[in-house]
């Protein structure tokens, strides 16, 4: 990771980021650049500080002690592991939450995630996968320069997850936000990302540029090689 001095060519710049809970450094000097439109997947064991890093970028850690330099775009969207839809608001109202006069854009966004016609449904009436697609629409209707996703498919079944991978890839190609996807699924990281980074004990310990052709398949020999290097970095020996 060469330090990038020009702000115009980076969407995210993190320098010497430290975050502490009770004197334990959960992030211990993280350095990270993400280029505009770049899709970065962040892997790590549980407790490695993945979510802490994402929350720092999202500005959701004002009550956490720490230091460091953090540059993020003005327009950041977050997708959580749970869809986090307001159960008392209809689907379209959830998508355009906090936006004024954006109903048409909201409808378009819902159509993009394949939910045209469900605008007036209640979130409870949707399946888990559909709810997560609404959450994606809610993020993308804001045309974010940075999309932060915290294990967004972690609660979905395997088949739905595969479909969501295809959808997310498509949406990111169309909207070109910089993406930081936190996941513990190595295959998911390789399938989706331009670059995979590994966080361990609060430090970035490995990085893999993924140059495999899309669509990527685990059957690809290149895939297997990347996979085994990443698993190594995660301390999993097969």
């Amino acid at each position: 990771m060469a330090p990038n001095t020009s702000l115009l060519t980076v969407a995210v710049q993190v320098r010497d980021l430290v975050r502490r809970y009770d004197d334990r450094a959960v992030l211990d000097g993280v350095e990270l650049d993400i280029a505009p439109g770049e899709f970065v997947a962040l892997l790590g064991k549980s407790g490695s500080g993945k979510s802490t890093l994402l929350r720092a970028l999202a500005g959701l850690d004002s009550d956490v002690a720490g230091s460091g330099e953090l540059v993020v775009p003005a327009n950041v969207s977050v997708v959580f592991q749970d869809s986090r839809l307001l159960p008392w608001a209809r689907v379209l109202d959830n998508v355009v939450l906090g936006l004024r006069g954006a109903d048409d854009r909201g409808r378009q966004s819902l159509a993009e995630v394949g939910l045209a016609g469900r605008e007036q449904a209640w979130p409870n009436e949707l399946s888990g996968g559909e709810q997560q697609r609404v959450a994606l629409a809610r993020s993308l209707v804001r045309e974010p320069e940075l999309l932060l996703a915290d294990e967004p498919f972690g609660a979905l079944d395997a088949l739905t997850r595969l479909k969501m991978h295809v959808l997310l890839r498509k949406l990111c190609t169309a909207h070109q936000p910089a993406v930081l996807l936190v996941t513990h699924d190595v295959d998911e990281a390789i399938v989706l990302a331009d670059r995979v980074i590994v966080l361990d004990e609060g430090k970035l310990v490995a990085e893999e540029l993924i140059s495999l052709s899309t669509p990527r398949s685990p059957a690809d020999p290149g895939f297997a090689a990347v996979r085994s290097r990443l698993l190594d970095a995660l301390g999993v020996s097969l």
Partner: protein
Amino acid sequence: MSATTLPGLRTREAGGTTVVRRRRLGLGKPIRFGSAIGPVLLLVVWSIGSATGWIDQRVLSAPWTVVTTAGDLIADGRLQSNLWTSAQRALIGLALGIVLGVVLALLSGLSRIGEAVLDAPIQIKRAIPSLALLPLLILWLGIGESMKIVTILLGVLVPIYIHTHNGLRTIDSRYVELAQTVGLSRWDFIRRVVLPGALPGFLLGLRFAVTGAWLSLVVVEQINSTSGIGNMMELARTYGQTGIIIVGLVLYGALGLLSDAVVRLIQRRALTWRRTLAS
């Protein structure tokens, strides 16, 4: 092989497989109009008792006497005018109590200063039964309408405040986080997240409040009152007219049930987004 099989009986079905019909341990199918059986039975016992003279007319009027008494009261307009007076008191007290309870809950639920100033006094008020304040309220406000309405208001205020405040404070912090990430303004946050999130709590408080309003009404109308259902019953006591007392009781019961049904209807309409065990 017959279609009707006894529970626990081993039978040979058409396909030739042997199945065991298990004895059912649940309650089984509900009885049609089951909830009417108890009251009807009570009415039957009452009627038989009155007809045979087993129930003394001076203790409890016969059902038909109650019906004719109600007819007489309606005919001379006493029932309607007393009912209207009572309903007015209850509704004004209820409306004022709801508004004040919600405002106090918002002030105390949405700011730390508000909580510090308001919460403890209201909790103290909660520990004192409204009716115990009556002597003081009579000294302050006299025995007129304002005393009656304030008593009802105080009874309504507490459940509305407690449940709305609790609703506000138990809104999932994940939604607060979401509101931050989508950059909601404070007003939008209140309008889109806080108020709808606290609505189930408020409506639960409303059910308690409505019941409480009728309860307070009964008490304030039976002391120092010249009109209303309670006053009508109180006069009937002096003259030993049990028929009128029963009419009053039936009215209170009907009003209580009716208002609870109205609140539950509002609840169903306002909370259509909820899918609960009951639905």
